[in-house]
């Protein structure tokens, strides 16, 4: 067995195990962390395919940004695991059927002659100084320019939609314009009252009743 093949099997074992744990982990935070491991391991698979740019992009985008925000949200949730698992066996037959259909569909597609996977040869090793990024960039900005731009527009749409959904004034918001904060002078906040440093001794009138 060659070295890359050993690496492939080790990575695959870790990937399958962590993917399994994502589904079965009792604690949602643990599940999210297992998912991080799964992403990281699959970037190793990209590296084996000599797609270093995609491997690094996967780590950068999914591990470095998406999953951090995901964890952020999951850690704040208060999830009762027992409640979540209550109807597990009741829903199991339906879920299993859906899962099996999905697996069958994937097998059908991948095993069909149109997929050309049977006679697929391993990619020829690239020259040591070949730039993955350059090759990918050339492809994206020439051959696949249109799909690339469409994907960009789609992402932009998602950004605009997300901002539009969250951009609303709260009634109890305490937002203060930073420009106004900067412009504040001491006189706006504090008024200095001149008082005489010495006062006359208060006159005590013995005839008055003592104050309550």
């Amino acid at each position, binding site marked *: 067995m060659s070295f890359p093949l050993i690496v492939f099997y080790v990575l695959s074992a870790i990937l399958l195990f962590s993917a399994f744990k994502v589904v079965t982990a009792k604690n949602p*935070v643990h599940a999210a*962390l297992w998912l*991080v491991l799964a992403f990281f391991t699959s970037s190793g698979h990209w590296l084996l395919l000599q797609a*270093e*740019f995609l491997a*690094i*992009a996967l*780590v*950068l985008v999914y*591990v*470095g*940004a998406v999953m*951090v*925000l995901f*964890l*952020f949200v999951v*850690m*704040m949730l208060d999830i009762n695991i027992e409640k979540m698992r209550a109807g597990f066996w009741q829903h199991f037959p339906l879920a299993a059927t859906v899962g099996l259909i999905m697996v069958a569909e994937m097998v059908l597609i991948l095993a069909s002659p149109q997929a050309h996977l049977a006679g697929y040869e391993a990619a020829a090793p690239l020259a040591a*100084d*070949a*730039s*993955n*990024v350059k090759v990918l960039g050339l492809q994206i900005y020439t051959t696949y320019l249109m799909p690339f731009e469409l994907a960009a527009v789609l992402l932009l749409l998602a950004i605009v939609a997300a901002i539009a959904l969250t951009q609303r004034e709260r009634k109890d918001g305490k937002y203060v314009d*930073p420009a106004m904060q900067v412009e504040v002078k001491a006189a706006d906040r504090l008024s200095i009252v001149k008082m005489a440093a010495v006062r006359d001794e208060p006159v005590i009138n013995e005839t008055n009743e003592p104050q309550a």
Partner: protein
Amino acid sequence: MEFIQGLLGEQAGLVVWTLLKIVAIVAPMMLAVAYLTLAERKVIGYMQLRIGPNRVGPYGLLQPIADGVKLLLKEIILPAKSNKALFIIGPILSIAPALAAWAVVPFTDTLVLANIDASLLYIMAVTSMGVYGVIIAGWAANSKYSFLGAMRSAAQIVSYEIAMGFALVTVLMVSGSLNLVEIVNQQGRGMGGGSILSWNLIPLFPMFIVYLIAGVAETNRAPFDVAEGESEIVAGFHVEYSGMAFAVFFLAEYANMILIAALTSLMFLGGWLSPFPASWGLLGASGFIWLALKISLVLFCFLWFRATFPRYRYDQIMRLGWKVFIPVTLVWVVVVGAWMMSPLSLWQ
């Protein structure tokens, strides 16, 4: 290398040789981290009219060793209600990226552990994982202060990573490469003939400032150290850590500082290039010493900031990251792009 390969065979020899190189990078790094803590205490001390540590060894030079021994000998306390496994993994995940990023950092144009093509991307990817150490540690400790620190840190690091990424995009646009060696070599060409005038510092000055400030925020250093925020949340994400587990967070923070300083030097300050023209003989010659000087200069700025500025309020941090830095960098990416296409381009 040939000698070791002859001794152990080709494959094993390569592995041993690479391990030796890793040790040759990590060991001086740890020493640098130790003495950076001393430098910090001394520099801040003098800025505040104190003399800093001066009891252990001459001028306090053995202070980091004493601190290290103290931390090694202290007990690591596992909080009873914590998540034990993640509590241990937290510090590990925080130091591992800080060290792994050094694999592609070049020290001179030939002295680099792994001269990979996309080294800049690799560094961005690896350093973006450092935040997991903080989040996991903060969550696993099962303490409210820890958790607040972790949440603050996660939001802050993700915010500033974007501005940092855009700053790097302009650098790779003008260099036409993602390789750090190539980025430095590109700064040696151009109008100034390899002197300070041809560094990225001048044409990309706004990006340099953004990168430097975002770097301070990424490393959770003052004035962006709300993740620790002693006065508000005691020590943030590492409030429950003691002994060596705490020290590992400390090491990671300082290793990250040195890494950011090295990257700033490589990308904006010409790396190992001399600030003088190459025709000036010994002064104009490039070498590791220049890189070391530049890293020290940037690190001094880190310490200087800490002694100078009060901590930012949390909403101010978010405003600076999202409403100031990201628009500035976005505009500057377009400006540099137009500049490169115009006849006035400096980067032909």
